[in-house]
């Protein structure tokens, strides 16, 4: 075994060293302007994903290279035909591969942070525990290695093995991204779940890969029932979702293209509703008495050709697809808060490269203030007299905190704890900082925060969030307030204000816009004046044409790639994308096109029947045949693709022997 391990290490060491060097270089290049060690970091999700992506790629390529090189050098027979057998060979590969993956996982963050530790002027303030988070999320390299090892055992050519590895990698990345995002907002001890899950997955998948490796490369040798099902389940779990997303992406693309092509509706000051077109020279299209459409010159802006309609007071123009963004929807003031993201609490911020010796006297890098929702800590970074300083407080605030500021001057922040309905404010006295509790004036009780929305579309009931996602005002029992100076001032709506609190926007609504008949590909809209109940518009906003027909065809086609349950769900859904789902098939949403539903389900059933027939014909075990049939019935075309990857068509039985006969040759 030791000889095998030595051989595997000799084979993999160049790969490990070069890739590790490349990963470290990438860490330094990518994080040149970002300080990962300053809590809580600007974009933790992205940094975590980046760390996971690099480790994942490194693990995948190592696993693939270890097995592909045996094929390339034709040394598989040399390796397995010895006393140690195929099992010993695989174990050695596994040991070296997973060790290499561990190096990829822990190496780059460790080296990067060590360099920071020695070079950064902020070294005393860095949160070194964060390095562990990156290392833990990078343990996805273990699973990646195992999946590459598994995909390398597929009884197909190198191209398909590569494709399978890539697909499995994409799936794993999805899993890692979701996992890391969840962990970022979970208690700190949950961090350890990630490497534990990755290690377990790596072990299970490696076991399957080992079975496949020992079974050899003959497509006529099917894996035994349990190993076959384990292999298939593993691949379905990871490579299935990316394949399923192909249909979903096609469907979304088609729906997006169509939405962009829909006409815009413009409500004129006198209450008339017109269909408008941004893409054409004349902005507004008017339908005359005999039904023909023509441009309305009154509304054309001849100088800029920009729609005059966007100017307040002239008309209200809106795109019907905004309805798909959740409009009309009740007050969304709490929505952003629920994400629980860490955010900048206030102060100026300039990214620094702490691994460089920077001029810390430079005032522009002086300040950063953060609230870290995960720990409830509030951090202030300062540069005072050329020395970096980091101050932090345990605020005891809940994760449901939001920052509210004065939109006019973008200062005077308060940290509002929506769960406990308390407020905190940072105060500075003689260079010393402290967090103090804040209260609304005159003993008013805090009820919550109202989001600021764009006033332009308040008339039609669209609550477009104002420029900054956390922009809001404080609602007390006796009114609305904004932070001002060291206290709070009552909110006063200025004339022509571009943003208004949600409750004010509710009072401004004059029209109701809704789908009269919902169809993602050809919706019918209705505009009603609320006061009079008069219907101002009822009609389709789709614009027929070749492009639209082609896009429809793409949306229909996507239904063939979709899992049958998602077809049924999409068909049964009466409402559009208010709660977007990864399974939506836009052509079927709202119970449209039963023929397409029947075709999609029929196609999946036909695939399942074919899979069952082939599995039996190819002498696969009954359990495996049932497994694959069920998988195709549930997951449709993607499962069929995976079936063909996992279970290649075996060589056909021999034909009749060569024809016998004597040779009779004539003399030339």
């Amino acid at each position, binding site marked *: 075994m030791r000889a*095998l391990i030595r051989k595997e290490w000799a084979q993999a060491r160049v790969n490990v060293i070069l890739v590790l060097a490349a990963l470290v270089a990438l860490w330094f290049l990518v994080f040149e302007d970002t300080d990962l060690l300053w809590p809580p970091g600007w974009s933790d999700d992205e940094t975590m994903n980046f760390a996971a992506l690099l480790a994942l790629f490194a693990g995948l390529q190592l696993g693939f290279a270890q097995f592909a090189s045996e094929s390339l*050098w034709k040394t598989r027979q040399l390796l397995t035909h010895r006393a140690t*057998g195929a099992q010993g060979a695989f174990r050695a590969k596994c040991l070296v591969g997973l060790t290499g993956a561990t190096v990829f996982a822990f190496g780059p963050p460790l080296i990067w942070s060590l360099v920071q530790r020695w070079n950064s002027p902020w070294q005393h303030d860095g949160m070194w525990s964060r390095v562990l988070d990156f290392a833990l999320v990078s343990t996805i390299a273990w699973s990646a290695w195992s999946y590459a090892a598994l995909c390398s055992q597929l009884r197909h050519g190198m191209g398909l093995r590569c494709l399978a590895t890539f697909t499995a990698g994409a799936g794993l990345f999805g899993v890692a991204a979701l996992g890391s995002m969840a962990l970022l907002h979970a208690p700190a001890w949950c961090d350890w779940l990630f490497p534990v899950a990755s290690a377990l997955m790596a072990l299970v998948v490696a076991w399957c890969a080992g079975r496949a490796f020992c079974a050899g490369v003959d497509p*006529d040798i099917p894996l035994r029932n349990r190993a076959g099902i384990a292999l298939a389940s593993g691949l379905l779990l990871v490579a299935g979702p990316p394949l399923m997303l192909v249909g979903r992406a096609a469907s979304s693309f088609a729906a997006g293209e169509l939405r962009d092509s829909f006409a815009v509706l413009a409500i004129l000051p006198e209450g008339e509703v017109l269909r408008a077109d941004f893409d054409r020279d004349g902005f507004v299209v008017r339908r005359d008495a005999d039904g023909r459409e023509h441009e309305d010159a009154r509304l054309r802006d001849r100088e800029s050709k920009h729609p005059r309609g966007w100017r307040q007071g002239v008309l209200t123009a809106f795109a019907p697809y905004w309805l798909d963004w959740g409009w009309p929807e009740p007050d969304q003031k709490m929505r952003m808060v629920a994400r629980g993201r860490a955010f900048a609490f206030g102060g100026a911020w300039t990214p620094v490269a702490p691994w460089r010796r920077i001029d810390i006297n430079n005032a522009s890098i002086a300040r950063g203030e953060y609230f870290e929702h995960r720990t409830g800590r509030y951090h202030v970074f300062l540069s005072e007299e050329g020395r970096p300083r980091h101050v932090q407080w345990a605020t005891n605030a809940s994760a449901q905190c939001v920052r509210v500021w004065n939109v006019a001057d973008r200062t005077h922040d308060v940290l509002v704890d929506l769960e406990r309905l308390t407020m905190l404010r940072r105060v500075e006295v003689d260079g010393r900082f402290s967090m103090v509790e804040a209260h609304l004036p005159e003993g008013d009780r805090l009820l919550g925060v109202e989001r600021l929305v764009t006033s332009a579309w308040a008339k039609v009931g669209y609550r477009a969030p104002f420029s900054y996602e956390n922009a809001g005002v404080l609602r007390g029992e006796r009114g609305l307030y904004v932070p001002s100076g060291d206290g709070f001032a009552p909110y006063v709506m200025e004339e022509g204000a571009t943003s208004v609190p949600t409750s004010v926007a509710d009072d401004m609504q004059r029209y109701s816009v809704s789908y009269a008949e919902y169809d993602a590909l050809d919706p019918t809209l209705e505009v009603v004046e609320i006061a009079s109940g008069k219907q101002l518009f009822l009609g389709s906003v789709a614009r027929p044409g070749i492009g639209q027909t082609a896009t429809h065809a793409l949306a229909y086609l996507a239904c063939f790639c979709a899992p049958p349950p998602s077809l049924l769900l999409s068909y049964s859904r009466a409402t559009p994308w208010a709660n977007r789902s990864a399974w939506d098939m836009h052509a079927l949403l709202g119970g449209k096109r039963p023929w397409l539903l029947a075709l999609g389900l029929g196609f999946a059933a036909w695939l399942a029947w074919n899979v069952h027939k082939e599995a039996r014909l190819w002498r696969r075990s009954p359990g495996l045949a049932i497994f694959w049939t069920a998988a195709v019935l549930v997951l449709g075309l993607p499962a069929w693709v995976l079936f063909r990857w996992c279970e290649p068509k075996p060589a056909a039985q*021999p034909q009749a022997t060569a024809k016998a006969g004597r040779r009779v040759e004539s003399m030339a």
Partner: protein
Amino acid sequence: MTDLIRFQDVTRSYRGQAVLTGLSFSVRQGEIYALLGRNGAGKTTAFRILLGELLPHSGRAELLGESSENLSAKTRSRVGLVTEGHPVYPFMSIGDLVEFEAGTQSTFDRAYAVAALSRLHLPQAASLRALSRGQRSLVVLIMALATRPKVLLMDDPAMGLDAAMRREFLDAMIELLGEQGRSVLYSSHILGDVERVADRVGILHGGALVADMELDQLKRRISRRFVKTARPAAEWQASVPGLLRVQLERGGARLVLFDDGSRGEAIERALRALDPALPPADGLSLEEAFLELTAGPVVLGAASGVNP
């Protein structure tokens, strides 16, 4: 004597194309068996089936008494292997390879390997990547023999070597094999090599063996005869047993005949019926015999040593 290698009616095809259609033969202890066949005849497939890398569609292959489908590690360690192209790990030196073999083969004789390498002027420090094909083939052969195998499998070991290298390889092989008595299954399509080393020959054609006998026997049993007859070939060819080829010439026909050991007299009688003044037979070289047996469709009896 015990059969160390046995194929029993093995069939196998790729993508519907039949490669082996009923291969049956065995290799006895201490015997050097040459499996001959043209390119694509199925020699490598037979080797891969024997090593358990491929499954037969029907039939059975055995190595050292074990089914090839489930070879134990112990059996594998008693089988030396020299494969086509002599694949080795390019990142290793000869010394590394010796260490690798010593660490993974329980029966590996390091002293033998070192001595053999030294005798053939192959320095242990040399990188395998830098060796010529001929040198690499010698290294692989030495490694295979150093495991002291009971059976040595060599799949076209001289393929791709030029004449000089082939001779060098063959000399080394004979020398090294001479030191130890073991069964060898040797596949090749270079007949000169076979004549030097093989005890027995199997000729693979059409997916099965068309001849399976000792080398001298094979040369004796394939003969060329000229018969003087004015009768058209279609009238009499069915009556001549073991007829491989009929070449019509002025005043008669030149026949190539194969006697599987049971039909010598029948052949003689049939030919004398055609030409009472039958001239004596011409002998064929192994190459000519091989070409006659593998040049096209053949009809052979089902007597012992020959597959129909």
